[in-house]
């Protein structure tokens, strides 16, 4: 509708402002990090004051929290859920396990580096990350959104083949329905 470059910039700015202050987290506790989500959301830490709130289904969500280690079985579901989310969408990796496998580095059932399979915008380290750290992660993501750098979803589309190759490497039976992006 608006072709002018400057006004596009302004529109982008407004959009980014809205996006960063309204992060709807998909209700999916993939790992043990899920235990620190309730404290983050409830009275002491109250992430809702940053505009972070839960969303029940992937269609409504903006933010996918990978709360800890991912088994291959969960990874398959996470990929499906992630692909059902609407752009722009963000991924936060929680805890050491998502970064390099953490203490499960030698487990036969968990992946060791999340960003090979999904585009991660922000990692929060720790085991467990404390609610403060989680909130710091949210603010970091907000900064990235403002700067326009939280473009994981775009990267994912761009490098889809690479991601798919990695995903299919670890998921033995790839029975996903056909998506049209």
């Amino acid at each position, binding site marked *: 509708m608006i072709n002018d470059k400057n006004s596009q910039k302004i529109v982008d700015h407004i959009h980014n402002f809205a996006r960063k202050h309204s992060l709807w987290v998909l209700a999916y506790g993939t790992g043990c990090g899920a235990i620190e989500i309730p404290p983050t959301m409830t009275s002491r830490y109250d992430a809702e004051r940053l505009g972070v709130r839960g969303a029940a289904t992937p269609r409504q969500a903006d933010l996918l929290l990978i709360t800890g280690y991912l088994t291959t079985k969960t990874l398959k579901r996470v990929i499906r859920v992630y692909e059902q989310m609407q752009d722009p969408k963000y991924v936060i990796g929680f805890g050491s396990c998502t970064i390099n496998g953490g203490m499960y580095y030698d487990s*036969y059932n968990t992946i*060791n*580096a999340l960003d090979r399979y999904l585009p991660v915008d922000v990692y929060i380290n720790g085991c467990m990350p404390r609610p403060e750290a989680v909130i710091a992660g949210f603010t970091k993501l907000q900064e990235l959104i403002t700067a326009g750098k939280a473009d994981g979803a775009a990267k994912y589309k761009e490098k889809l083949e690479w991601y798919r190759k990695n995903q299919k490497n670890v998921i033995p039976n790839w029975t996903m329905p056909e998506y049209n992006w």
Partner: protein
Amino acid sequence: MKENKVKLAKYLKEHFPAIIEKDYNYNRIDFSINRELVPSVLRLLKEESGYIHLSHISCVDWLEEEEFELVFIIWSPVDKIKILIHTRIDRNNPVMDNIDKIWRQANTYEREIKEMYGIEFTGLEAADEFLLEDWNGMPPMRRDFDTAAYASNKYYNRPGREDAMDVREEIARHSGEEIPDFAKKYSR
């Protein structure tokens, strides 16, 4: 406690002469028996002696001895004694009798042991997959399954996992941030 255990051992000996008893201190007593008799021992203990609670079923892989050891741990709230019943089965032909008719919860244990060790429980009715999805290798809990090798083959390992490497600078370079002073002074 002590006399109860002696009585119990005597009682079981009467019914199952082959049973081997081993007493531990406090409230534990162990019995070993061959696998065919395990269900009848358990049924006897549950129905006649009040050992109504099946606390645990475990499996140990004795690779060196080519055997699996199955351990059934049962508990009586009246006697307050826990009994460990050990049985050994051939590792190359691992078959065991199903006891989920005696205790319903045994079903879950057996499903897991079947999946993790590849032990067949005769007459077990449950879905094939329990914890693993589309697993078609060696049952992973067997001693000869090398999980570290499997993991390093299958999954990408991020560099820096090797012991005692300081990755902070690399992370900082990657994310374009300064390392805060307080972080600098800690070192391994």
